Structures are given as structure tokens and as C-alpha cells.
């Protein structure tokens, strides 16, 4: 009887010992994992991103426009540190504000453009876009048959609204009514690969963000990551963008590009002079688009696409200044507007000189 009891106690003790041992093991291994995991992820981050805690701070930062001056300074410093380490060159992230008394506008002479695509490549280079798989381009050049352009300028002012019982508000008659009086983008080719340009039977029309005065993309953004600055340029806070692509759907010109993958920007090709809302390297899952080279234009320089154009087809300037190139174009040249304009009031004008 007593022997049996001792045996039972021993078994119970063994079982308890085994459970205790098991729990001890679990606790020790959990503690080890807790200590080791951050160290291992830290080490992994060290290779991919030399300043892991910066990323965490970035992740939790607010909208740049709503930050205090001190917070802005910290955010800029974090980015400069990270980019400098990542691309192995001293990188500056500017925060220069838009100048006062300016409303930027752009004009492009279709009759001069030779379709060389220098603007496309200058834009990619200047704005640190993804270079391969795929190369993200903010400007697309369309090649169109010359037959697509037709207008009789002398008839432009001869049309009048048809009389009706409600007054003179009827459909347009006379002048260019019932005729094509402009330019159609039908049969345009986006991926022409000519050895020599221009092709004399075609004309070329580069398309990019139209910097609308009433931008539908801004209205569509649920978090106000995209906004219009006081110089009329539509910008994006890449850190605040949630990648919902509502703006892309809202843009009637489809001028926005979404980073489906991590942009591939080789360190040696990276432009180290950047702006927070402009050409600083973007991340996967955010939207990007033309900013009229905000890093240049806010410092009084011209956009890269305009600077590189070999035939002077591009004009950039202040719409508030009657002496600016864009205002002169509007005053003296034959300027087009999109037929279906959706009330967006683009500040990018196509014209014929």
C-alpha cells in the first residue's frame, strides 16, 4: 500500500517536473526569440536600409503641410540621411516654398515638336524615375498622321448660335460648325521607333500632367495627399499617399503613374538634388506624376523638359505676368483646348506657331 503510494507520488512528481521543464523551455525560447528577432530584422534592415528607425519615424510622420517647422526639419534630415546612405552620395531634399505672385503655365508648339523624345528622357533623369522593369515615364509622345490636324482659322469667329424660341442659345451654325476644326488623336502611335525623326507625314504631341486649375485628382484623393500649391502646381506628399489610386482614376488625361513595384533607380544615375514634393526617390505603392520640375521651378529655373528641347517647342512661364512667354502664346498664337475638357481648366496649352 505504502509502496504503491510512493510510486504514485513519484509518477506525479515526474509529470510535474516534465510540465515545468516544458514551460521553462517555452519561456526561454520565447525570450530568446524576442531578443533575437529585432536583432535579426535590424541586421536585415541594415543591408537594405541603413537607418531602420528612420523608416519607422517616416511611417508615423504626418502630412508635410501640417507639420511644424521643427517636424519638417526633422523629416527632411531623416530623408537626407537615408538617401545619402542608400545612394552613396550626398543627397539634399529641398523644402523651398512656391514663390508668391506666380501661377505657372506651360505651352507646347505642336508644329515645332520633332518627336525626338529628349524631353521624356530628360524628365526620367531629372526626376529619379524607375529606370528599368519598367522605365516609368511621365511624358508620352504621340505620333499622329498629318491628316489628323485640320482647321480653317479664318472661319473661327464666323460661327453663331442658332436662333430658337428660347433665345439665341441654339447649336452652333456657320463658321467651322460641322467640320473638323482642330486636331484628333485617332490612330496615334505611342511606341514609334523611328531611326530618324521627324517623319514628314506625321506630327508629334507630347502628353503629360496638365496641371489643372480645378484638378479632379485633388478632389478624389481621400487623404489630401495630393494638393494644388499656391503657384498652381499639383503635387503629392509621397509619405502621406495611401496608394488607393483614386486620383489615377479621376484624371481624364491619365497623367499619373503608380509604383506597382519598388522603383529601380541605380545609385550612379540618381539625381541628388531633390525636393520633398518633387523628384526625391519614391517607394512602392505610391503615385507620382509631373510636377513642372518643382525642384527647379521653385528656384527660378526652367523644367528639364523645356531646357532640353532642341527646337524650342516648349514654353514655360508665369500666367500672371503679361510679358511671360506663355501669356504671349495665349495672346498671339492659335491655341487648342480639349474638346471634352471636364471643366478641369488645364494650364498646359497646345498651340501652333
Amino acid at each position, binding site marked *: 500500500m505504502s509502496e504503491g503510494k510512493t510510486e504514485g507520488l513519484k509518477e506525479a512528481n515526474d509529470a510535474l517536473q516534465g510540465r515545468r521543464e516544458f514551460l521553462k*523551455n*517555452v519561456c*526561454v*525560447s*520565447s525570450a*530568446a*526569440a524576442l531578443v*533575437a*528577432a529585432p536583432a*535579426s*530584422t535590424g541586421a536585415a534592415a541594415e543591408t537594405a536600409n541603413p537607418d531602420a528607425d528612420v523608416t519607422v519615424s517616416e511611417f508615423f510622420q504626418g502630412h508635410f503641410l501640417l507639420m511644424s517647422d521643427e517636424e519638417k526639419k526633422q523629416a527632411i534630415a531623416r530623408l537626407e540621411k537615408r538617401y545619402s546612405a542608400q545612394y552613396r552620395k550626398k543627397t539634399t531634399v529641398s523644402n523651398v516654398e512656391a514663390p508668391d505672385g506666380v*501661377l505657372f*503655365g506651360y505651352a507646347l508648339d505642336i508644329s515645332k515638336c520633332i518627336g525626338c523624345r529628349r524631353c521624356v528622357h530628360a524628365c526620367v533623369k531629372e526626376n529619379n524615375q524607375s529606370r528599368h*522593369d*519598367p522605365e*516609368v515615364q511621365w511624358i*508620352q509622345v*504621340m505620333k499622329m498622321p498629318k491628316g489628323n490636324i485640320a*482647321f480653317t*482659322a479664318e472661319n*473661327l*469667329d464666323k460661327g453663331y448660335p442658332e436662333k430658337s424660341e428660347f433665345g439665341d442659345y441654339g447649336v452652333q451654325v456657320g463658321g467651322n460648325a460641322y467640320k473638323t*476644326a*482642330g*486636331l*484628333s*488623336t*485617332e*490612330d*496615334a502611335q*505611342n511606341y514609334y521607333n523611328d531611326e530618324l525623326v521627324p517623319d514628314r507625314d506625321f506630327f508629334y504631341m507630347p*502628353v503629360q500632367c496638365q496641371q489643372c*486649375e*480645378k484638378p479632379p485628382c485633388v478632389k478624389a484623393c481621400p487623404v489630401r495627399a495630393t494638393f494644388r500649391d*499656391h503657384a*498652381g502646381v499639383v503635387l503629392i506628399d509621397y509619405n502621406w499617399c495611401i496608394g488607393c489610386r483614386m486620383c489615377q482614376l479621376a484624371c*481624364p*488625361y*491619365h*497623367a499619373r*503613374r*503608380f509604383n*506597382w*513595384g519598388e522603383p529601380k533607380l541605380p545609385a550612379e544615375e540618381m539625381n541628388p538634388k531633390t525636393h520633398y514634393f518633387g523628384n526625391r526617390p519614391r517607394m*512602392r505603392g505610391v503615385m507620382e506624376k509631373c510636377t513642372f520640375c518643382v525642384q527647379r521651378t521653385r528656384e527660378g529655373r526652367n523644367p528639364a523638359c523645356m531646357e532640353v528641347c532642341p527646337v524650342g517647342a516648349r514654353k514655360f512661364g508665369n*500666367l*500672371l505676368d503679361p510679358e511671360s512667354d506663355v*501669356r504671349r502664346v*495665349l*495672346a498671339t498664337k*492659335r*491655341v*487648342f*483646348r*480639349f*474638346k*471634352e475638357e471636364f471643366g478641369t*481648366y488645364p*494650364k498646359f496649352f*497646345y498651340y501652333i506657331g
Partner: protein
Amino acid sequence: MGNEQNSRRSFFKKAAAAVGVIAAAAGTKNLISASSASAAGVREKYEADVASQERAVKGNQLVLMTDDEKKQRLDDLLNFHYQELA
């Protein structure tokens, strides 16, 4: 002797468990952070974006503005701008 063996075995057990937990944590992290789509899938998505832009742009028509229209357009732009500033 028995105790010694026991402690060594227990040490190896703990080490193995710890390695297992770390591996599981790393695996989970990779699962969460890795792109769900392959490189080809990503390329397809980029191409779909470009194709939709082409469709949108190719359906466009541009019409010449009359002098009145140009003046009206400029006035509208400037008015909107000043309203925005105000």
C-alpha cells in the same frame, strides 16, 4: 552524469526551439512584407496602366480656341487662382 546529460539535452532542446521560433518569425515577416505579385505580374500592371492612358488619350479631340475663348480662358484661370488665394 545523468544530470549533466539532461542539462545538455535540455540546452540543445532550448536552442532548437529558439531557432525554430526565429525562423517562424522571419518567415511570417517575409510573408507579410514580400510582394504578393511576381515581377511579371507587376510588369503587367504597369502595362495595363499605360494601355488605359493610351485609350484615354487617343479618344481626345483638340479644338482651336477663338480669341474670345482664349481671353475667357485666361480670365477664368486668373479668377480661380485669386479666389483660391483669398
